[in-house]
């Protein structure tokens, strides 16, 4: 058998071995057997020494080709085996094991609603102002044209501290502070915490939040008030929302209005949420009463303005379909985590 035949035989043997090889360890052995320094190919090539130059060249070329074949064959096999092993492992990998839960922080729903309201009003040109919760009679009542011992005060039961101090029963006190320190034009919203002696139940709380708004200028009209409220309600509750203003009475505005939005659930057809009438009462508003302007030293002949106020808890209850106001202050993590 000449060298060339031996090479053919080796190739056949190699192909057979490769076809049987299924692990990287076996493959390492094959590499030693066929390509190693003491491997079979090397052995055969040692026989080249006794050949004529022409035979040497021919067999040498053949041997080189076979060597390259072996290398490529083994590399391809290695890739194939590695692949198979990765796939095998991956197939056994249990992707259904629960993920490692990251700590998900949440903003309190009341903060969320207040921030959303603030953003809307800021985009409509309003500035945000704060004011004190512990207040005196002047800012909470007198300057707002709410006389002492008047039936108008029935809706404003109040916690008292000492003397003429009290916990503000609405954020309207901030209107007075703002107007005392700023000349018109004024365009401001005043979010904050307010207090009224209401026993706690599913729909009442002795503490809650309001967002108050005020705009004063030389030509501010009732139509402007309607425009701002419509823009706000549509941004807050959806572009299809309709608003309805009804005459009402507030001592600090004249004319005054109670503002309803079309029911966010039934869109005005009538459902349980809106007690069947298609409308939800959400805020009070009106043109600033000249007596309020007088109390802060604005000339009511020169300026007009509008004001509005709304309850943040009420709007949050409506927005998320929450049915108990106490949930806001229990801070049950199962509740808080829903507001991601």
């Amino acid at each position, binding site marked *: 058998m000449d060298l060339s035949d031996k090479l053919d035989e080796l190739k056949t043997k190699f192909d057979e071995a490769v076809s049987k090889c299924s692990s990287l360890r076996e493959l390492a052995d094959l590499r030693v057997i066929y390509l190693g320094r003491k491997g079979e190919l090397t052995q055969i090539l040692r026989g080249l020494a006794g050949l004529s130059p022409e035979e040497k060249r021919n067999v040498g070329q053949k041997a080189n080709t076979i060597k390259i074949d072996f290398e490529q064959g083994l590399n391809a096999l290695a890739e194939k085996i590695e692949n198979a092993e990765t796939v095998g492992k991956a197939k056994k990998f249990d992707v259904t094991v629960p993920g490692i839960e990251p700590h998900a922080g949440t903003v309190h729903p009341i903060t969320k609603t207040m921030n959303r309201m603030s953003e809307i009003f800021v985009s409509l040109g309003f500035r*945000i102002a704060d004011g004190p919760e512990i207040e005196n009679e002047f800012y909470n009542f007198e300057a707002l044209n709410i006389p002492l011992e008047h039936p108008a005060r*029935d809706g404003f039961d109040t916690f008292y501290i*000492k003397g003429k101090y009290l916990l503000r029963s609405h954020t309207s006190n901030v209107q007075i502070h703002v107007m005392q320190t700023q000349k018109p034009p004024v365009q401001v919203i005043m979010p904050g915490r307010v207090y009224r002696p209401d026993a706690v139940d599913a729909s009442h709380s002795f503490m809650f939040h309001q967002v108050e708004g005020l705009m004063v*200028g030389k030509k501010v*009209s009732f139509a402007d008030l309607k425009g701002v409220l419509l823009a706000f309600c549509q941004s807050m509750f959806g572009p299809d929302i309709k608003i309805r203003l*009804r005459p009402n009475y507030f001592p600090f505005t004249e*004319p005054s209005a109670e503002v309803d939005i079309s029911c966010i659930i039934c869109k005005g057809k009538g459902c349980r949420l809106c007690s069947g009438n298609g409308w939800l009462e959400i805020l009070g508003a009106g043109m600033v009463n*000249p007596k309020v302007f007088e109390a802060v030293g604005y000339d009511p002949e020169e300026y007009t303005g509008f004001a509005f106020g709304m309850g943040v808890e009420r709007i949050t209850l409506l927005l998320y379909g929450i049915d108990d106001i106490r949930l806001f202050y229990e*801070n049950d*993590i199962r509740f808080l985590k829903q507001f991601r």
Partner: protein
Amino acid sequence: MKLSYNWLKDYVNVKASPEELARILTMSGSKVEGIAKVGDDHVLELEITANRPDCLNIIGLARELSAVLGEELKLPEQNIGKSMPDDKNSVRIECIVEAPELCPQYTARIITGVKVKKSSAKIAARIMALGMREINNVADITNYCLHELGQPMHAFDLDKIKGGKIIVREARDGEKIVTIDGVERELKKGMLVIADVERPVAIAGIMGGIDTEVSEKTKNVLLESAYFNLLSIRRTGRKLVLSTDASYRYERGVDRGMIIPASERAAAMIMGEAGGNVGGFYNVGDCRSKKMSIDFDPNKINTTLGIDIDKKEVKGILVRLGMEVSDKTDGRFTVGVPSFREDIKLRVDLMEEIARIYGYENIPARIPEISPAVIRKEKPRQVKEKITEVLVSLGMNEIMTYSLVNESVVKRFAAISVSPVTLMNPLSEDQRVMTPHLLDGMLKSISWNINRGTCDLRFFEIGKKYSVIEDARQYREIPALCVGFTGFIRNNWAEGKRAVTFFDVKGVIEALFASLRLVPKFKQSLVEGILAPSAVISVDGEDVGFIGEVTGKVLKDYGVEQPVFVSEIKLDRLYEKASLMDMYKALSKFPFSSRDMSILCDKTVTAADMYDVILVAGTELVKDIRLVDVYEGDKIPSGKKSLTYSVTYGLDNRTLNDAEVESMHARIKSALSEKLGVTFR
């Protein structure tokens, strides 16, 4: 206020269905809360605002509708305004008003020879449709007229009035009266009563006495129609906790022009129902005030309301509402306000009348010209929003707690509760004081959740702490942040369980301050009885808050049995000191190298001591120091601890070579052993 649909039709032509009528009334300011079908009638339940006592009767509402619908108002044909004779030959009494400031006008009319029995079917039906009890044909008429005209009246059995005198006076302290509801009531000075020579026979404007009530035996009636001081009625009603249809109207203000006409209408109706003859009429005082007249420029309506309405229409609305409108040469109106509309005092009040009747729904909506650019959010709000954003991104849940707490909270947290603000009229003991810090709310929320099965919590609240400077009568509301951690911070199959430590809360505070470009310093300090271990946190040498582990004694009060770590930060100073500017710092182009050092030192050596030495010795070459391992235990001598620091060295303008790094590392080591006596392992 209840309104009968059928009865209403006596005074105004209404074609609208009850439902449509309800909508019209609601949209013009008399809110209809519900409609009930009563027999062949519909009764509307209305909520009338405090400024509109004139709408607390059927004619008042008919007037409203006449203005909205443009229909004529039909007043009762007979009797109103027709004066009745004062028969001086009939039974005489004496009528004395001793307290004219509380009773500006009092009228008494005598009707003799009445036959008291059940009311006629029509009167009875109307009374009962409005939910009132049928009594007798005299009492029912006073109720009928109250609902028709809005004037409360009271009928006494004349023969039960002792001494022939009606005296309107203040009650004497401790004086008693049994009112027609059968309740004995003790009166106090300042309350107004109607009395005879012996005793009070009625609490003025609120409720009559049972002794002088008209019954089937009554032959002669004394019919009272009066005007009482609003505040007096309100105060008395509040003190006695008694509100009636009469007092509800008196305290809001009845029509000063209706005192006598109402008496005439009622007397005529009583005679129609019960027979009899009018006798003497007594009228003490005159409550009528000068007619209010307002100079009104109808041109201003369009600019203030943003509508386009002409003068003629304006005039028509005002006239139908009962105003007298006369034109002035300059195009303005002089508007005479009727006695039943005392709420109208200013031009804007007339403006509202126009807006109401024109219809708010007919006023267009437009976006106003926005005021010139101003800072819309000031720094405190921006910082507050940033704090919320950072804490939420660090995986914390925002809570919100009541700012009114039980007084015991002040005692429990005495060390941090200075001069709390106390309410004079709390609803309950649990809401007596304004919270002097945020810890109580935090611990209540943690306790609430642990009791419901969630024990791993990371909460924060941004609220206020309240206090008073007693002498100066100054109330302080300090914005504050409270952070509370408890339970496991890691608890999963891959990492196992790791309980929250002091350093988790500290890490949050450090990260928060870093985001505000502030460097907090922590100094060990006990918060007496509340926190241990604990530290005060300062910025630029100023205390801004504290951090620590809540003591078991406090936790016990909340029923919490696992460690809780808290921190409270005063935000007012932080709002000032924080910087919201994010400045870019160039990245070094040259690689830094790190070296570890394992230190064995006394337990008394603090981390801060070591940092100080490393930073001083290391100059600007030290870019970062990280504590990577702490060991205290059997493998090292007692009283010692083993610490491993990883120190990063570098320069911004070139790469440090190994020799430079090694030499600096050695320098720091020798400084540490020299200054703090540490050894290296």
